[in-house]
């Protein structure tokens, strides 16, 4: 795993990145970060991900570098960083935000894209097989509830999830 290297020379900077993140539904207040490092010290993958560095990079406006970082996809979403941040910065939400931005540039790990396709096509992250239904019958459980997939597709159409997922710029 490569160390995050921040080089400001000849780097395109987006001074509005921090404001954009602070004002989204995934609010994360990066400007309040004092770089104390509590987030990284509690991260179960702190060896690979440095939330405090990611937040610093957001404040510097390094959008292009951030969306190409593999580290953002290794966040387990355990929310330990957000729980412990003494400044209520919410690094986990900031990382979600960066993943959303990366997705809009067509950068999505293949495995994750596959699960999202299941959601689009089945309304669930995993397909319920006939074997599982037979098992339910044997156990005396009612059938798995049916999902009206047309409704889910309409919902996804409104949020443009299908288009984001297939890498089109939205």
């Amino acid at each position, binding site marked *: 795993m490569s160390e995050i290297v921040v080089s400001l020379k000849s780097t395109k900077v987006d001074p509005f990145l921090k404001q954009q993140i602070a004002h989204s*539904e995934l609010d994360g207040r990066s400007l309040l970060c004092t770089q104390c490092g509590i987030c990284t010290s509690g991260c179960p993958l702190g060896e690979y991900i440095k939330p405090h560095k990611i937040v610093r990079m957001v404040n510097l406006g390094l959008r292009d570098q951030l969306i190409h970082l593999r580290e953002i996809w290794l966040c387990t979403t*355990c929310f330990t960083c957000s*729980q412990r941040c003494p400044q209520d910065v919410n690094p986990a939400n900031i990382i979600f935000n960066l993943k*959303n931005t990366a997705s809009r540039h067509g950068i999505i790990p293949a495995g994750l894209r596959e699960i999202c396709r299941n959601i689009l096509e089945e309304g669930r992250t995993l397909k319920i097989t006939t074997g599982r239904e037979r098992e339910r019958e044997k156990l005396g459980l009612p059938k798995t509830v049916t999902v009206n997939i047309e409704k889910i597709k309409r919902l996804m159409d409104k949020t443009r999830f299908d288009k984001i997922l297939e890498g089109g710029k939205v």
Partner: protein
Amino acid sequence: MKYAYYTGCLVPARLNQYDLATRKVLGKLDVELVDLEDAACCGTVIARSIDAKTNLMMSIRILALAGSKKLDLLVTCPGCFESLMDAYTVFIENAGFREEAKSILKDIDNISYDGDGSTVKHLIQILINDIGLEKIKAVVEKPLNRLKVAAHYGCHILRPSTKLRVDDAENPKMLDQLVNATGAESIHWMLKQWCCGFPIQAVDRNLSLSIAGAKLRSVRDAEADCIVTICPSCQFQFDVLQNEISKITGEQYSMPVILYPQLLGLAMGLAPEDVGLNLNKASIDRFLERLKEVWK
């Protein structure tokens, strides 16, 4: 007591025993469950990683479906729980999202939703807050005395606590109390509060499983008889994938992994197959042997 009931995706797709044991145990505690029809995936952190608004919409739709039934919503999956709580919080606090969501819900399901009608509750909240530990202790017929249990909460039932408001995020007690109510002993173990690693499986499977391996080692070192979980993702990771974790780390754990309603059901006197114990994968024979000793 009556609740709308939402299982999420992983339970019907992989862990029917969680559903079975939940229905059996709550039935014995006079709780009635109404399956929430047409409730699809909540989106959880998977959809949130790609597009936060899609996750919020999928989750708020489930709350709206439960709200239209005027029933509080029982969820067994902490992943769903966190996602529904997050969507509810944003719906209440963010007027822009609220108006957009209301219009989409009206259009797709013809539901007028204002945030009323249903409160999301995880299974452990219903057991402790709505039913109560005393009533649970009173139905224990075969106490699991001397059984040493490593309680495993799962991240999305605890953090961030300002939003979820379930338990103390750094020093949780609820599952430990529930384990102790069966007569078993919830023991201390080092990596209790760590994530199980499940959510990054689709990105880096080896790394995901190596986190679980570190936790399994910690449980084994604490000399637990079993892990008890309340999260389908954690259960799947520790139980179904335990062999694969052993291959990656080169260590044997032989650690039974039991869902809490299975443990409670056994203590209530239900037979192992009544709580679907035969569907668990890791070292179940060892666990059944241990039960025989406990009940001697």
